[in-house]
């Protein structure tokens, strides 16, 4: 009987269910139906505004140099101060001056128009006092001078790879080099170029009075539509850098041998990097501006209908934006427009939320309607009434170029932003 009892318990425990079958509708299906509705809500986006000044040009991840028919842009770098004296002996407070022999500049080109031919990069000396107040006009004369160095990117890329072990040991990777000694390392299928320039003291003078500070301007030229972006300090380890090579004399006060000479080097990164361009971006207007420099964002508020919270399940949500003008930007350099949720609605200073938003890639020059999928965000509005039903439109990355797009706002009735929702009506449970 114990076995029988055990068997009984096993049967009781074996409640494996397989109760779902293909439906033979309508005869053998529940009376209700899952109904999907699709509507474009043209008036629920309201009180939308654009604000500028979120990311300044000198705070951007990249700096753009361009030579376009409509826009000229130039990158600039002011390197940090350098030591002018060293203490040659440990524990000795006496110092001796250093004598700079040469320097090596590293620039990382993170983006370029690869359709451009005969792309040249030219470096110019800039005042060490250059700062965020500098404008295109104020620096224009310096870019009119003779460049301290220039390099043909196309020429460098056409050079053979140097792969010998000595080179690999010295550079850490294969390199390409031209007759002038410029060195190129490529990454990510040659999308990212790391350029090295060797300067003598005439090209990059070490001025003790300036504490070794150095200002450099970067300009690009090409057969047409030249543009390139360079990593900045904000991008981290990809920042421009200058390696100063110097020597100094160690005074010999003990033996009768002559003073010895020591060689050393020190790396300096920018104290300031930025870019200037002309013409400047137009002032904000009634439209929803996104991007540009300093970066602009647009706050879009949605009067979320209560009935969508109660009776419907949103399965897809798309915000529809109509560009007011063709997106301004670098040719062949599409950019991303992000729609990001906010934590609370404080107007221009609304803090961004970590919640999921949406994004879309926009091609410069395009006037096509932009659609951004915001399903997760809008679903969260339906589920949680405490969430601010608004989002910011912004560019990704911000302020790295003069690229900007402007959408019609709710003040333009014919082209105002709209929310396209696909939603499922609540199933009529409880009815046969």
């Amino acid at each position, binding site marked *: *009987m114990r076995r029988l009892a055990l068997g*009984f318990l096993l*049967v009781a425990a074996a409640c494996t269910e397989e109760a*779902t*079958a293909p439906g*033979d509708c309508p005869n053998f299906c529940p009376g*209700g139906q899952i109904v999907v509705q699709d509507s474009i809500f043209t008036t629920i986006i309201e009180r939308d505004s654009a604000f500028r000044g979120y990311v300044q040009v000198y705070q951007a991840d990249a700096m753009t140099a361009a030579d376009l028919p409509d826009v000229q842009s130039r990158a600039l770098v002011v390197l940090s101060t350098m030591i002018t004296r060293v203490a040659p002996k440990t524990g000795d407070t006496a110092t001796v001056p250093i004598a700079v022999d040469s320097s090596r500049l590293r620039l990382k080109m993170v983006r370029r128009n690869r359709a451009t031919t005969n792309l040249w990069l030219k470096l110019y000396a800039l005042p060490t006092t250059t700062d965020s107040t500098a404008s295109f006009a104020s620096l224009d004369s310096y870019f009119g001078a003779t460049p301290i160095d220039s390099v043909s990117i196309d020429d460098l890329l056409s050079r053979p790879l140097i792969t010998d072990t000595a080179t690999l040991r010295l550079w850490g990777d294969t390199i390409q080099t031209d007759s002038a000694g410029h060195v190129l390392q490529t990454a990510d299928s040659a999308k990212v170029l790391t350029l090295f320039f060797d300067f003598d003291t005439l090209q990059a003078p070490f001025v003790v009075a300036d504490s070794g500070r150095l200002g450099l301007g970067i300009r690009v030229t090409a057969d047409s539509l030249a543009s390139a972006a360079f990593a900045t300090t904000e991008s981290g380890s990809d920042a421009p850098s200058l390696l100063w090579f110097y020597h100094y004399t160690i005074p010999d006060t003990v033996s009768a041998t002559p003073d010895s000479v020591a060689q050393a080097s020190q790396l300096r990164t920018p104290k300031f990097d930025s870019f200037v361009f002309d013409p400047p971006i137009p002032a904000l207007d009634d439209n929803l501006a996104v991007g540009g420099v300093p970066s602009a964002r647009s706050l879009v508020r949605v009067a979320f209908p209560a009935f969508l919270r109660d009776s419907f399940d949103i399965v897809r949500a798309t915000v529809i934006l109509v560009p007011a003008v063709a997106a301004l930007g670098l040719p062949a350099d599409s950019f991303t427009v992000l729609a990001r949720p906010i934590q609370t609605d404080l107007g221009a200073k609304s803090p961004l939320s970590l919640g999921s938003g949406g994004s879309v890639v926009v091609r410069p020059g395009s006037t096509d309607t932009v659609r951004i999928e915001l399903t997760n965000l809008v679903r969260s509005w339906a589920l949680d009434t405490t969430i601010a039903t608004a989002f910011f439109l912004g560019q990704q990355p911000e302020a790295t170029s003069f690229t900007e797009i402007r959408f019609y706002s709710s003040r333009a009735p014919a082209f105002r932003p709209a929310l396209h929702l696909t939603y499922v009506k609540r*199933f009529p449970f409880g009815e046969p």
Partner: protein
Amino acid sequence: MTLRPVVALAIVMAIWPSDRLAAQDSQFGIRGLGTPGKWESVRARSAGGAFAPFDAFSPLMDASLADVRRMSASVTSGTSWRSIDAVSGAQTSLRGTRFPALVISGPLTGRISIGGGFTTYLDRSFGIITQDTIDLRGVPQPVTDEVTSDGAVTDLRLAAAVRIHRRLAVGAGFHLLTGSSRVIATRSFADSANYKTSTSRDEVAYEGQGASLSALVDLHADLRIAGWFRSDSKLRADVRGRTTEENDLPLTYGAGVLWRPGGQAILAGTVSWRNWASTGPGAGPNAHDTFNWSLGAELGSASSPIRFGVRGGRLAFGVGTTPTEVGYSAGLGRQFSGGRGRLDLGIERLERKGTGLTERVWTFLLGLTVRP
């Protein structure tokens, strides 16, 4: 074997979640109020249901409780394997395990016995998957819908039986219809990158009451007849506290006869009617009045009998013509612990036919009765 584990098992069965109480699912019940349960113990069901009016542990009739002379409990479980042949040619196999009945009863006085327990009034467990292509934003979009319901309307019974005369016993019962079903409707899209799956969940609560009357008459020492009548109130379905549906429930009545032609043979037959067609707008034209019959026999000693039976009739719900059901069953029982316990095993084969669908069901039945 001590009886403590068995009693404990009976208690476990008694408090088992209500969504496992369903008797037996059927696709025919989806468009109706559900699949009516079979108010039968394993003993009765193994004999086609013919012994149900005379079996105190079948929750069909209250008067039969008068035969219970000791405190007893009985639990029924069934595991079903169901195949569905749709007219479209599609064939599906389903399975499920249920605990459709529990009866506890005992004498209150020498003439009065009381009892109670639960059984399935309407089973509401099913799952349906359908596929379709709809036009969304100007693009044909394949979708898959799944609607599942897991639960039942459970009949909680409190009954009493009085032996008025040595040849006559009458019984009455109060029935509380309760229970719920967890329902989920899901639509998923083939383009899952753009369209999120939509899921609606809810719980439908059911409520109703009923009363039953029955009588057992011993015409002769070997011949007994039974009759029963039951009336129920409206069945209310509530979702989130809001009544979504109210349906009349049918009158139930029937009669049975049991004959003992010898010391080791019992024959029985029953007929029953239920007017489901008047259950109201919820069931609509898919509801049908039912007439069901059964014949069964129990052979052998009372301690280890063999049973078999046949049943037939009509189903309450189905599109078009009234679906029919034919069943064959067999089983055996075995007493243990000096008659303090009984284990019943049974197997049942059902075939249900209706417009556009044929269902075939194998059910393995296991019942345990204890008299502590």
